[in-house]
């Protein structure tokens, strides 16, 4: 199992632990992730609200780079990168006019699609849950989490082609496999406020507070995410939310790869568990789930 | 052969089925949609009535383009005449390619009785395409 790996900017900065844990899990499972050489930013939200063509040209550049590596599919972990790469493929595939313009911008031909996959999809559908179960060192019994997918992973469905639009379950499936109990909750695909984090923080505080509240009400001890922006908003802003809304949340926000890593017996530090704002040590330690942070 | 391109006007024959496309062209008239006069309409009961010989006859006698237009799939008044027409069209077009006749010269369309606008646009586009293709050199006239 070999894939062209596109980490994206977040995983090289604010979401370093997502990158670390992904690589660790992949290594432990024998999934080879080869980082696309000289990859560039996908443009994320800033590009597509500025200029439509730019928002296609940036990911297309990366897709072309990936093709040069051979016949690999691209794997990415960031929900935004996933969305942008898939969107670019979609437009290139369905719209000749767009394709011609973008090819002119990037200065080389697109030459057809390179399939883009989310790491969730790879773990569940390529590697397989059964296979994963066979590789576990331990099960994280007794941990109740809310699996949170955010707004970008499944929407719009004709582009993302990932999981169930309104009631996704890939993270839930993975958590169940490693012994973690996912709670049933209705906010799986609510928006956390995403990139308003810097420009309109109030919006993020309100939306993220609602998500934390719902997870808490449904009995979750932590939230498991698959998007760096979701993680950062729920983790980084949690103390501000507590102050502003007079709450007492203490919910660690994990990447799904971190918990899988623990179940595979990987050292907590290697999974970047020390990089969280809301410290997970108490939760994991008290349940004796954590090897070492 | 016509020497001066600027004076040459494409001559196109349209075989229109009575129930959908002919009525669609009627509606274009009722809606006063303007389109070029190059298409001469021959009414047939069904697009499936069009014998390949008619198309060959057109192209061999100097007509620059031939159009068959019928009901949308599923809408055929005779339930499947347009399927027959479509199959015949596909084969005939292959033959034309083989013979070196520009496949643009033989086209098929689905225009319903309510698609006046589509008809007008179709004619405009078709005339333009045939103009690009130039005069039919098979023509002896």
């Amino acid at each position: 199992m070999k894939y062209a790996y596109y980490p994206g900017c977040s995983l090289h900065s604010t979401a370093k632990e997502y990158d670390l844990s992904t690589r660790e899990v992949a290594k432990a499972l024998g999934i080879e992730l080869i980082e696309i050489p000289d990859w560039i930013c996908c443009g994320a939200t800033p590009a597509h609200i500025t200029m439509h063509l730019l928002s296609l040209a940036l990911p297309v550049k990366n897709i072309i780079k990936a093709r040069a590596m051979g016949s690999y599919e691209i794997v990415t972990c960031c929900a935004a990168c996933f969305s942008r790469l898939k969107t670019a493929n979609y437009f290139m595939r369905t719209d000749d006019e767009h394709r011609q313009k973008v090819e002119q911008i990037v200065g080389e031909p697109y030459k057809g699609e390179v399939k883009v996959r989310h790491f969730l999809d790879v773990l569940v559908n390529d590697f397989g849950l059964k296979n994963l179960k066979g590789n576990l060192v331990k099960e994280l019994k007794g941990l109740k989490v809310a699996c949170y997918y955010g707004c970008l992973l499944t929407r719009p469905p004709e582009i993302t082609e990932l999981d169930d639009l309104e009631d996704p379950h890939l993270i839930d499936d993975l958590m169940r496999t490693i012994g973690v109990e996912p709670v049933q909750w209705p906010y799986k695909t609510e928006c956390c406020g995403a990139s308003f984090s810097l420009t309109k923080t109030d919006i993020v505080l309100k939306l993220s507070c609602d998500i934390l509240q719902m997870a808490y009400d449904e009995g979750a001890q932590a939230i498991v995410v698959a998007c760096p922006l979701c993680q950062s908003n729920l983790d980084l802003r949690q103390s501000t939310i507590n102050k502003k809304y007079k709450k007492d949340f203490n919910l660690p926000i994990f990447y799904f790869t971190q918990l899988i890593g623990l179940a595979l017996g990987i050292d907590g530090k290697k999974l970047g568990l020390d990089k969280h704002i809301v410290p997970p040590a108490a939760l994991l330690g008290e349940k004796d789930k954590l090897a070492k942070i | 052969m016509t020497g001066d391109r600027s004076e040459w006007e494409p001559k196109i024959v349209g075989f229109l089925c009575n129930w959908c496309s002919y009525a669609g062209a009627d509606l274009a008239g009722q809606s006063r949609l303007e389109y070029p006069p190059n298409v001469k309409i021959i009414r047939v009961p069904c697009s499936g009535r069009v014998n390949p010989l008619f198309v060959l006859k057109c192209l061999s006698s100097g007509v620059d383009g031939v159009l068959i237009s019928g009901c949308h799939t599923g809408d055929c008044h005779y339930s499947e005449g347009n399927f027959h027409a479509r199959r015949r069209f596909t084969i005939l077009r292959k033959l034309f390619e083989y013979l070196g006749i520009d496949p643009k010269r033989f086209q098929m369309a689905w225009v319903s009785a309510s698609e006046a606008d589509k008809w007008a646009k179709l004619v405009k586009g078709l005339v333009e395409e045939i103009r690009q293709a130039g005069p039919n050199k098979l023509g002896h006239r």
Partner: protein
Amino acid sequence: MKIGVFVCHCGTNIAATVDVEKAAKAALNLAKVKFSTTYKYMCSSPGQALIKDAIKEKGLDRIVVCACSPSLHEKTFRECLKESGINPYLLEIANIREHCSWVHRDRETATRKAIEIMKLAVTKVTHNRPLEKTHMPIEKRVLVIGGGISGIQSAIDISFAKFPVVIVEREASIGGRMARFDKTFPTLDCAACILTPKMVTVAQNKYVTLHTYAEIEEVTGHVGDFKVKIRKKARFVDTSKCTGCGACWNKCPAKVASEFDLGLCKRTAIYTPFPQAVPNIPVIDRENCLYLKSKKCGLCQKVCPFGAINYQMQDEIIEEKFGAIIVATGFTQFDHSVYGEYGYGKYRDVITGLHFERMANSSGPTGGKIIRPSDGKVARDVVFIQCVGSRDEQKGVSYCSRLCCMYTAKHALLLKEHNPDSQAYVFYIDIRAAGKNYEEFVKKVQNEYGAVYLRGRVSRIFEKGGKLIVRGADTLSGAQIEIKADLVVLAVGLIAQNDAAKLAQMLHIPYDQNNLFTEAHPKLAPVETITSGVFLTGACQSPKDIPDTVATASAASVKALGLLVQDQLEKEPLVARVDKNLCSGCQACIKACSFNAIETKEVEDRALKRKRTVAEVIEGVCSGCGNCTAVCRMSAIDLEGFSNRQIMEEIEVL
């Protein structure tokens, strides 16, 4: 041969763009044209008189009229020829209005094109042959497919004219959707009170035969002579012995969810769908009957005082003939489980309008109580969501289902009457209350019954703390709102029956992208189809409420009766013909014919001195599509009015 060409001005419609005098003069240069003239309105009486006089005076024997589309006045001018003693099929129309003067502006160009169109018509008319209309007998019986309110009304109307009529209904009872309704808008008549008498009337009518628990298997033939195979599904109950006493279903131990009550309660394996069923004779559902599944039980047979239960009964296929068919197959409701935001149909307290009808009905599964199906508690806060599946190109259908605004308003009213402490919230896109007293009804529900109408869509429903949280937008105030509801009622749209396309193909009638049957003309032939003798009524054509359904039922009946009262059917003679001398008997034409209008026939070949098989067209069945002519390698089969020679020569003169 003397051809006369008559060019119409159509007021200024043609004359303003086409130089009609020039065209008339040009006609005289064409071979065999002996006369041409123009007139202001050729279709008017003086215009027709002009043609008639010219025919007499100049001895014309073929006529070309350059005027509007043949779809408008071909008939008129054929009649005119007939009155002048010429065969009406020796006419051609040159369409110089719709296809010329109305679509071109330049006078010179238009005149040139008009002359070319005329040339085509003159060429074509040269080869027209005198033809006679054929006549066919009519089977004076009507088949009505579907026994809902539209089929019932059609049958009653036809029986008034004393023609036999057969209703084929696939359920065990007639009554259809309307039998499930509680009240009807806007008058709040009880649905059963107005429907049941009609059901009884139709059952007792000596002109009406009911085939319930039966389906159409095959339709062949054509107007005046449809041959229909009907599958009478095995009831396992002898209809001649059963009295409907109910001893069997009272004892039956097998219980399954009732389809009639949408699973809100149970029925037995031997059952009538509802207490007022017509006929009041049960059927045994073979999937669930213990005896039919495993030979255990047999209780119903034991308790039946009349020996009416027969486990050996088989499906029976009968074949009947009809002159006309009325399609009254109705609709089904949209399946809302595609809406993830409404819980994929998983929440038990998210129901459809039809569930609500059943609950509101005093003889329904809850005895008229409007409750939460999950825990049986009385529903207080109820959210109604309109346009579920309708007006939604992504997940449903693009059209408006037309009745949901009204039935939702009715539900809001009924809710208040049943549960006085309740509160109704209605999410809508637009309120479409076009109908007599409809708008007034909605206003009444809003003003007197306090239903809160919120203009906007619901984005999500989820369960929390035993309530349904309904989150939506109120676009008028611009606010996002959340309602804690006990019950959510979805106004699901009306869609075509699952097997509508299959039936349409059997009947050779067109249907649209939504599988709704297509009428012959949306305005002027709304209950006819382009297949002669097949008529439409009710919601199988488009969503209709009860008044519209009943109106189309009567309209379709009149159309069917209009056929039946004729002594014989007239048929256009523009049919295919086989030249037996040319026919090689390859039968390619038979395969190309969708109407089974071509047969084989043995003829004596004198040259070969033996018998030879050739194709022969059954004139009464041929529809004149000409598909056979295009496949004939010998050009032995040709179409009257559109012959090979006519079209080839038209191409030549271009």
